[in-house]
């Protein structure tokens, strides 16, 4: 009898692990790197020159193997096991592995040879964390996966550079992140209290059966706390405060990572706990209905606060941080709209499309900063870019492309992304949805101001006397920049294939 139970348990475990093979591969690489790295560094902290290239190649290899395995998998029906591999999980895994590779390229030369292994390992575990967020089928699993993103992030912020600004940034992120994790966990516990299970499928089933209805207050508290906890990851107002300070102080690759990766995890987690529709005798509802007025305000506030404060920034990373806040607002528009559209793209489809597009353009913009970065001189204020069109015309052109895309101008993917969001919001036909569309359009206009100002600085202002030569160490950044540029243009020219993938979700 007990044999049967044990073999049954082993079988279940095998089946569960089978759903997360790519993540296991990535995490195995992480373990390998953490264990072996100390042996390759001397006691004084010196490493053989060029060691970072090996770690970079290993990270890329690991991601490629994971990607290969991922390509071989296909979505499976959801059970009550610990993991799930539905269309969304499959899609998000592809997105995070792809952009993970771009981030590996960006991180390549950020840390010195001695700390490269740990830095890359942190990045890999963050990527695995994103995958697991999408694959988690349990509130506990979801929380652990989110922490698998957060905790390595603290290291990732500090490892490459340990000067005062980086320390300050790390400390701020650390404290506020813990605070938000606490809120999230608090919300999850209330949800558990209301429905009596931590398994997502069981929760849906319980809500389906009307278990939550006698205790709406419990559910409201749960939703509010979870939204607050996850909004931190989305950098939605008023949970965005860390972003500008951290982006400014953190190394370039960490800022790039923070602008994008937590947003994927946040939106997926938000979708998992709130947005899955539940059918209650004759009517369809979901927890999102509780939260949508709240999220409506979060979206509008994020758009406005992000854009208005970005206008005042002189530091380019702070500007990009506020731009990241405003883009969180745009994407929240898609989330709020959800499936409540008639014809045209649904809000979720538009959100997922925008997420991919945003990844390409924001990582591209940070890649440009990485390319321009030199040991003796960091690009900090926008004025540092003056005259770039003369010194480095190709780089200036690509930055212009990314900024055009962030603004939402054709011929870039950002245009299609904003257009889809707008159409989705307008297609609701409700007053609140159409107001969202209007605020989106207004904010796109305000955004144009500060993005175009950067372009103006690059093209119209005279170059400083000291010409900046190309940095030989920047090759991986160049590659990342080129990949992002191709994606930004390609998703405008042929968005069909991505759209087909998204529509399966």
């Amino acid at each position, binding site marked *: 009898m007990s044999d049967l139970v044990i073999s049954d348990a082993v079988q279940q475990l095998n089946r569960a692990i089978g759903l997360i093979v790519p993540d296991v591969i990535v995490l195995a690489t992480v373990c390998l790197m953490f264990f072996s790295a100390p042996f390759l560094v001397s006691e004084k902290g010196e490493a053989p020159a060029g060691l970072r290239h090996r770690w970079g190649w290993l990270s890329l290899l690991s991601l490629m193997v994971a990607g290969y395995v991922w390509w071989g998998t296909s979505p499976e029906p959801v059970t009550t096991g610990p993991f799930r591999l539905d269309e969304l999980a499959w899609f998000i895994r592809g997105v995070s592995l792809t952009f993970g590779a771009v981030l590996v390229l960006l991180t390549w030369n950020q840390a010195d040879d001695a700390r490269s292994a740990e830095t890359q390992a942190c990045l890999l575990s963050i990527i695995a964390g994103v995958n697991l967020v999408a694959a988690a089928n349990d509130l506990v699993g979801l929380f652990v996966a989110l922490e698998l993103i957060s905790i390595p992030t603290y290291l990732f912020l500090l490892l490459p550079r340990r000067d005062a600004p980086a320390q300050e940034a790390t400390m701020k992120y650390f404290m506020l992140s813990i605070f938000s994790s606490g809120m999230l966990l608090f919300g999850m516990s209330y949800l558990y209290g209301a429905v009596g299970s931590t398994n997502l499928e069981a929760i849906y089933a319980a809500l389906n059966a009307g278990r939550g209805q006698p205790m709406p207050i419990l559910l409201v508290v749960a939703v509010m706390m979870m939204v607050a906890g996850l909004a931190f990851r989305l950098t939605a107002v008023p949970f965005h405060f860390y972003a500008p300070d951290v982006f400014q102080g953190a190394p370039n690759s960490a800022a790039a990572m923070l602008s994008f990766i937590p947003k994927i995890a946040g939106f997926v987690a938000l979708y998992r706990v709130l947005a899955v529709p539940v059918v209650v005798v004759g009517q369809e509802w979901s927890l999102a209905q509780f939260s949508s007025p*709240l999220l409506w305000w979060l979206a509008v506030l994020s758009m406005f606060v992000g854009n208005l404060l970005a206008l005042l920034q002189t530091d380019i990373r702070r500007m990009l941080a506020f731009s990241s806040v405003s883009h969180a607002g745009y994407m929240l528009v898609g989330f709020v709209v959800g499936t409540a559209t008639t014809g045209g793209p649904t809000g979720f489809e538009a959100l997922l499309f925008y997420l991919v597009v945003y990844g390409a353009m924001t990582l591209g913009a940070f890649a440009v900063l990485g390319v321009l970065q030199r040991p003796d001189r960091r690009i900090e204020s926008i004025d540092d870019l003056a005259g770039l069109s003369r010194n480095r015309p190709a780089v200036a052109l690509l930055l212009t492309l990314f900024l055009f895309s962030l603004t939402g101008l054709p011929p870039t993917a950002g245009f299609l992304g904003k257009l889809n969001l707008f159409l989705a919001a307008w297609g609701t036909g409700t007053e609140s949805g159409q107001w969202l569309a209007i605020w989106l359009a207004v904010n796109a206009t305000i955004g144009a101001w500060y993005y175009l100002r950067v372009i103006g600085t690059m093209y119209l202002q005279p170059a400083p006397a000291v010409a900046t030569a190309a940095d030989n160490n920047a090759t991986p950044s160049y590659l990342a920049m080129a990949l992002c540029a191709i994606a930004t243009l390609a998703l405008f020219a042929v968005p069909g294939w991505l759209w087909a993938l998204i529509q399966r979700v």
Partner: protein
Amino acid sequence: MVSWLNDNVLWLIPAAPLLACLWIVVAGQFLRREKAHQPVVLGLIISWLCALYLLFSVVPSTFEHTAEHADEHAAEVKDVHHEERHAAKGGAVTYYVYDWFSVRGGNEQPTTMTEDQARADAGGMHVRVELRADAMSALMLVMVTTVSLLVAIFASGYMHGDPGYPRFFGALSLFVFSMCMLVLASNFLLLFVFWEAVGLCSYLLIGFWFHKPSAAAAAKKAFVVNRIGDFGLILGIFMIWTTFGTLEFSQIFADPTLIAQVAIAQPEIFTTICLLLFIGAVGKSAQFPLHVWLPDAMEGPTPVSALIHAATMVTAGVYLVARCAPLFMHSPFALQIVAGIGAATALIAAITALTQNDLKRVLAYSTVSQLGYMFMSLGAAGADPEHLMQPAVTYAMFHMFTHAFFKAVLFLSAGSVMHAMGDVIDMRRFSGLRTALPITWITFLAGALALAGFPLLSGFWSKDEILAVLHMAAQSKEHGTYYTVILGVALLTALMTAFYTFRAYLLTFHGPEVFPPEAGHHPHDAPPAMAIPLYILAAAALLIGLATGPTHLYGHYLHHTPGMPSAPAHGPDWLMMMLSTILAIGGIAGAHLVYGSHRGAAGVKDNASPLQKFSFNGLYLDELYIALVVKPLRSLAEVCEMFDRMVIDQIVDGVALIPGIVGSILRPIQNGLVQHYAFVMLLGLAAGMVWMLQSLTGSP
């Protein structure tokens, strides 16, 4: 080979110059700059041979087709699929290139549509890039490619040593491509696209020496004045679209009864369409009141004047009206306007040409005047469209055909004069060039005789036929008086044409030999690259009318154009022939009387009398336009600018301040203190919580 050529000759005609242009753009401006004319000449030779092949072999093969299978036409169309790129039907050959764009109408249809389905799809729009050649296009193409080829060869000598040599040939071949595509367009939209493209090429070529302010201004003037005409054309195309539901020539012109129905049902709209199309033609063909750009366009290099502003581009307007003859046929009123405008233009331009001192300007005004002739001919059908439309179109097209050759030789000879005189073209500064420039002299004389309508030369046959058709129109009962006046104008213009042509000829080539200092010691005559095209064109100017006019070769060929109304043949009009001979010889004699024994360069007096000044300044039309159109518009623009600056800008600046102000209000919260951040997060959480709980209890 032959069947391949039959299928592909159509696209080869425009493709060859396009490739030449691309070569120059991509590589020719760096490699072998001095030889930039070679790819263009090669491309034009290919084009020319293809056009000849099209004229003599491909298009005639469709003629019997028309007669025998007219009834089966509708059935055949159904079999035409997208894959079948090449097709011969209804007197025209077509070559389908690709679907430009497709807008579906109200009723859902499968995406792959046959032509028939496309037609059925009301409200939808399907624009195919398709080449279509019938008899009229084939004749136009031969004319365009022949003249272009000769002009390109001439230019290879004329433009030699110019720093923009490759640019010149790039623009030239682009122009030939656009002109061929204009003629080959199978629908109005495609026609409009290349209508604009030739306008653009004209701009590029007029402003070729853009560092000269006058050339830049002339290019701008040509472009802007043309825009006015193009505006009319595009409105006309819109109206055709709303009226007929299609823009395809084959569908609009295929069925005369359909056009007649529309014309009867909505006569005002129909007339408006015709007049709007004609406005387009007025702009492009430099008719009154939009003719002012053409004389200024002489700022461009002379081969350009010969090619674009005499032989090809300006004929596009005539081609458009001739192409739309099945439409104009049902609107006698529009045709009468066409005739009136043509007559006015012919007269005004001829009067102006009488006193010009610039040799090229004389030719430019004579071009305007001759284009007016062509429109008079087209408009002559207004008296009795049933019977006169066919001769009217035939003779207009025929005059265009002969005019292309003799005007090209005149311009090129003038270019040769300029070349020899060190770019001096003012007839007061040289004379008696007969002995110094014998080749130029003889070819100019041939062109001048043809233009003056000397018996048996090209201009004689075509001008005579225009007079004949006007004479027929003048005999009609209803509008006889109107057309009698126009006939009188035409005769008067013929007289003046002969006079001013020979005035220019005598001033330039006769009298004592005088050279301007710019010419150097020994003015050299045209080198072979310039002389050969001159000889060929001169021969054409002398003979081509005789070869194709009285033998009716041209006319009979043109009658195969689908949609052309058929009419009984007309015999030669002896009265008009006699009159025009008398007028031509009278004009030449008159010129000889006044200028035959002039005393060299100093012999030309300044235009002193008011009448001469009136003529010299082009009836003060430019000044009139400046006073009536340009000045009021400029004042309006100034008012608008003030409004923009004082009101709009202030509002915009004011609005732009708001985000900044709001931003600075928000800014203090972002103060860098982590405990504040946590506190505000907590506040947000609390506010959200309170709000949500309240809304929950508020609405249980």
